[in-house]
């Protein structure tokens, strides 16, 4: 499978994906006031980055939104095709679809593949706990701490990972890449050969494997 095919292909969920039992199929509304089902429409077979925010936040959310905007630019070929951003509100009572639309437009982030989601508070709380909870009430429940982490999900691989929202952009990009769709054997062999060539070059030049300056 080449890169182009990968970008246009609709992936099937992984056979072992827990589907709605983990992610729930809650009906949410995006900033365009469209009803979407969380698993069927947003997660199923897709790769996505989920964070929690609220529109009136003046703490860390604006910085996180700005970070995601930068990441979006770097990955814009994939955005809306097989990679999505979901910014979910933790204050659904305040954040109506219209409020989220205003938030997205005012920050120039009303972009394809980036959804701001609101819905029933119980549903959002359940999703937040399912994605971020390790039975740890601290993660994202406290309004002042709610943007600690980005959850990166790839349902086609049945895998997920995490990035700290305040890590460097390169670090976040790498963690998104760690959840990329499976590459073909041939593609991986080519990548490994290229990496080995770099290692050999470095060993020749410096006497040891540096691996760092990528």
């Amino acid at each position: 499978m080449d890169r182009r095919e990968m970008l246009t292909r609709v992936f099937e969920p992984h056979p072992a994906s827990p589907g709605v039992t983990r992610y729930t199929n809650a009906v949410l509304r995006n900033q365009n006031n469209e009803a979407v089902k969380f698993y069927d429409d947003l997660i199923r077979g897709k790769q996505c980055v989920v964070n929690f925010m609220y529109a009136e936040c003046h703490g860390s959310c604006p910085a996180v939104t700005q970070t995601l905007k930068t990441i979006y630019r770097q990955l814009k070929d994939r955005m809306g095709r097989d990679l999505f951003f979901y910014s979910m509100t933790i204050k659904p009572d305040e954040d109506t679809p219209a409020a989220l639309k205003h938030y997205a437009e005012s920050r120039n982030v009303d972009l394809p593949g980036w959804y701001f989601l609101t819905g029933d508070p119980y549903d959002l709380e359940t999703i937040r706990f399912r994605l971020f909870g390790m039975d740890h009430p601290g993660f994202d429940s406290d309004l002042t701490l709610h943007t600690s982490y980005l959850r990166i999900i790839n349902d086609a691989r049945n895998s997920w990972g995490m990035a700290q929202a305040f890590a460097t952009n390169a670090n976040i990009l790498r963690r998104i890449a760690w959840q990329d769709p499976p590459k073909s054997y041939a593609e991986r062999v080519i990548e490994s050969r290229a990496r080995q060539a770099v290692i050999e070059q470095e060993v020749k030049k410096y006497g040891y494997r540096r691996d760092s300056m990528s």
Partner: protein
Amino acid sequence: MTTTTFGRNEITVHLHNGHHGSESDGFAGDFFGTGFWKDNLYPNCYAGLDAFGGNGDPREKMGSFWFHDHRAEFTLNNNVLGLNGMYIVYDETDPGHEAPAANSLQLPGYYGVTDFPLELVDHRFCPTANGRTELVNAAGGDKFIVNGMIQPSMTVRRRKYRFRILNTGPTQTYDLTLIKPDGSVGTITVIATDANFLEHPIPIDAGANAGNSNSTTAPIVPGGLRVSVAERYDIIIDFAQFKSGDKLYLKENRTMFVGNPSPDPLPSGLNIGNVLMQFKVVNTEPWFPADTPPIPATLCTYPPLPATDNTWEWQFVLVGGRFRVKRPFDTVGCTFDPDHSAHCMLQGTTEEWLLNNNIASGWTHPVHIHFEEFRTLKRFVNGVEVPVPPLMSGRKDVSRLEAGQGALIKMQFRDYSGRYLIHCHNMAHEDNFMMVRWDIVPDQASLDACIANQQICELEMKAKELFREEVA
């Protein structure tokens, strides 16, 4: 069952704490998926190859290693699902048998006969109070498991046995005591900490040797042996003092739910929920190896420590819900970045590192440093120096920092160069990025390059990136 505990079929194998090259170290970012393989080279040598040649400095001997998956973000999940095991190395002083031999200490040493690993892990079977059913959560498991069994029973003969205790986590700390048939605390003799022989064996019990116990902060357990995640303690228990038919118990301080009463009457004061495992004493049969001589008073001699070339500090902090490792000049701290090192040093140097958990987070951080063993020079509680506890006086590779504690350690960086890690071995913290990379480099030019490309503390970097973004 709704669960977030799924493994990740990508692995990187870390031999904890082998002295070997960086490429074989199981670096957290070096994972690979199905269809690929990797050869790790474990020379099983002593440290000091360059200075001593051959197999290194025999005074740096190690025994009870373990290996485990180190996949960034999924170390906990993959370890809970079983990707770990013990890796035991023998040499002439500890030859893996009990027959008299040159230089042999003649410790109990027939593996599987008189020498057993005890791997502790806790799993969750029943929901927590708030209905959570994950195997992985901050409350830990609800069942304590020894070598894959809940409350196993072991038949032991009236002689000495060696147990290699390993806590594979993923998050909880154990306080172990040996309960004698009369309900009192028995003596266990620690001979090795984190795979390194102590210079002199340390007996622990609730009586004369209570001062050697390391369960001295809350919860205080008289005569307890505290084992945090990834720590290993090789202990010897002498069952010769008991009579056939006696039953002894290894007790854990926390209580698990056990639905049935004990099949055997328990010693007074012991609750079935605290029983980790049972020892049934029988007479030694003629075919069973006879008892070994008494434990030698001196097990080994440590080499003197070289002069210090540099000092450094790592703080393990929880800032705004984020686990981070902080360097002296950082304001907030660093998360795990596989591409940049947070600290660089020249090969062949010696550094003193201050490990600090002085932020009042309430967490225990068992700090693990890859590559080589360290010696603890000083210990601190809330910034005040305290005597180094006996069980931390030996060489170790995990320094347990309870809330408010700190340690000044000394470590050599020799024989190999490359990238290694320092991290909190509470696997939930490690997977939440309480881990940084450090590099050993072979020459000054590499050191300059390494420092120039050093990891920049996240928040300052973020501010720069955001500023650039605004300007653009």
